């Protein structure tokens, strides 16, 4: 099966059947999908045994370019949804996968994306159990869009919410920030760096499990994707009505990422991440959680980056390495490079 995607691949006939059988069912390979019913059927008993609440989330992936240093849209489509489940304390279990293909997409591109999804799903311990494919006219979509929805189970007793940040709590991050945003800028070919930055795209389910084992009472947990670290910190500050103080010198930022930001006039706090989470825990839990994070491959470079106080309520304050302070607000629009 060589060549390109045509409208026939989405028409419900033989071409579509063949695409689904060979590429998707063969590619993702699990019994629930292979049954080829119109829906996946999940055993309730198995779910109930793991916890007392279902977590359910969805996300769409439209990244350009499709392949970038350290990842691709397929890997992103798994990790993004898995991570949205994991940061609720849920054990991610099942995903759906909807694909919108642009007519003319090389089949080989699709094959590479599917292989990447399969490998990432295995790494994350989830199964793709149901799916859908549409083909649209050339120009009606940009090569390939993916939507994944996911289901996970939250263990009893876990209560992670943005509003739970309390004065005295410590703020942690699981490693280098801004890698994904810098990698995408670089992959668009606008900078031609000598040392390309790789995306940090990775599933976080295992890391969260390890953190919960060290401290079941994690107060807040979110992955810092679009909007960057600044976005998540502001969500916590607003929801909890407390002030989040960040120490600039404690932030793990690679020199190459800082370099990209210096050249373009971008702020690493607003760069996207795809494998980074921010946790807020009680002061006495900070060291044990940090230790558990550092013992896991997805948290090797974890750090305590700040502390929660009462005022100024609802704000994020950065204590600069230079000795000053400034507010870290939400971005007004897209982050745009400065003129000079």
């Amino acid at each position, binding site marked *: 099966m060589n060549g390109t995607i045509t409208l026939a691949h989405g028409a419900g006939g033989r071409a579509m059947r063949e695409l689904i059988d060979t590429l998707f069912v063969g590619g993702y390979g699990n019994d629930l999908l292979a049954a080829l019913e119109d829906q996946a059927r999940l055993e309730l008993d198995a779910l109930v045994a793991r916890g007392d609440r279902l977590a359910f989330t969805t996300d769409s992936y439209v990244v350009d370019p499709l392949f970038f240093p350290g990842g691709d849209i397929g890997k992103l489509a798994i990790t993004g949804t898995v991570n949205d489940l994991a940061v609720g304390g849920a054990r991610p279990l099942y995903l759906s996968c909807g694909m919108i293909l642009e007519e003319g997409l090389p089949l080989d591109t699709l094959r590479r994306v599917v292989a990447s999804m399969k490998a990432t799903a295995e790494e994350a311990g989830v199964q793709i159990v149901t799916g859908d494919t549409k083909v649209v006219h050339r120009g009606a979509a940009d090569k390939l869009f993916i939507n994944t929805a996911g289901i996970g189970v939250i263990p009893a007793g876990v209560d992670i919410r943005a509003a739970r940040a309390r004065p005295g709590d410590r703020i942690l991050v699981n490693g280098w920030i801004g890698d994904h945003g810098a990698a995408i800028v670089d992959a668009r070919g606008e900078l031609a760096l000598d040392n390309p930055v790789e995306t940090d795209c990775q599933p976080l389910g295992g890391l969260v499990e390890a953190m919960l084992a060290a401290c079941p009472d994690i107060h807040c947990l979110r992955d810092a994707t679009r909007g960057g670290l600044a976005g998540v910190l502001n969500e916590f500050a607003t929801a909890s009505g407390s002030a989040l103080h960040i120490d600039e010198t404690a932030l793990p930022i690679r020199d190459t990422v*800082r370099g990209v930001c210096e050249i373009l*006039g971008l702020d690493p706090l607003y760069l996207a991440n795809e494998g980074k989470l921010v946790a807020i825990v009680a002061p006495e839990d900070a060291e044990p959680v940090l230790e558990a994070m550092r013992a896991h491959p997805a948290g090797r470079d974890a750090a305590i980056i700040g502390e929660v106080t009462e005022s100024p309520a609802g*704000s994020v304050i950065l204590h*600069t390495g*230079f000795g*000053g302070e400034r*507010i870290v607000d939400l971005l007004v629009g897209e982050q745009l*490079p*400065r*003129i000079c």
Partner: protein
Amino acid sequence: MKFVDEFRDPDKARALIREIETLLPQIPRADERPLQIMEFCGGHTHTIFRYGLEQMLPGAIELVHGPGCPVCVLPMGRVDDCVALAERPEVIFTTFGDAMRVPGSKKSLLQAKAEGADVRMVYSPLDALALARANPDREVIFFALGFETTMPSTALTVLAAEREGIDNFSLFCNHITTVPTIKAILDSPDMQIDAFLAPGHVSMVVGEAPFRFVAEDYGKPIVVTGFEPLDILQSLWMVIRQLAEGRCEVENQYRRIVPPEGNSAGLEAVAKVFELREFFEWRGLGSIDHSGVRMREEYAHFDAERKFPVPSLKIADPRSCQCGEVLKGVIRPWECKVYGRQCTPQTPMGALMVSSEGACAAYYQYGRLAVEAQRGKTG
């Protein structure tokens, strides 16, 4: 990170601030009202807010954030002209990123792009010329914007296009000049500024000499300043030392980049391609004589304004805007009637709320702490 962290060393910052504190009592009348020091350049304003410099300074120093943000001071009518050019079907309109958000009277370039105009972000005018080479059936217009800093690269790009005989490339020229603008501020009757930090990157091109009139004719110390936080602190220390010693002259803090004579090759290219306009309209400051450049007659075929019809309508600044008074240090940003109410970064009414380098936007975004500190100081 090498060559960056050296210029952000907190110990050196503390030492400089101590030095400044020792010098202050030697300045006559320093106890009567705060010393007003204007940083002209938007790049400096950005650094001051990004590193929280303002709260680190003694209360006797008040920084006035000048008009040196080319994106902010672009009048709405010019943005409307941009949009009109960008909406021509044959045009690929190229621009620096932060100019895309500046509101015109009806829309910004970002909105025009969303509605189908072919607007592309570039990092250099040479990127725009490359697009012209690659798209011979389209007209590529570069939105030339900025002070003397960006003029040489635009001029050299025009000269390259001329050499290569590329005829589908043109400029929409909005370059502006520093010196007439500083002069206009110095000439305004309500001006109280005691000293200036001169823009480092502009000086890299024009040299030190054009700023001598500030010291010689107006008796104000001025220091050519770099863009790292220690550069700014060191320059503040230098102007305060001048004030304390009763001197006033042009000093150069940014010697690692700025040669006293400037960049002669760059200036030559600029003089070849551009000539002064009689006047140019600024948002917030109104019309200033000789404060902009246009393309010389010999290069008219690269001038988008002569190649295509543009509406060129003058759109007045909203009357409630007090940008001019903020720019001259007469009022502080948060003392403006519309600041933070009708005028916010989401819905900018005045020039200074437009780009993150504008004083009002910077206060809104980063500076609430500084505002609280200042309010504490004054009452």
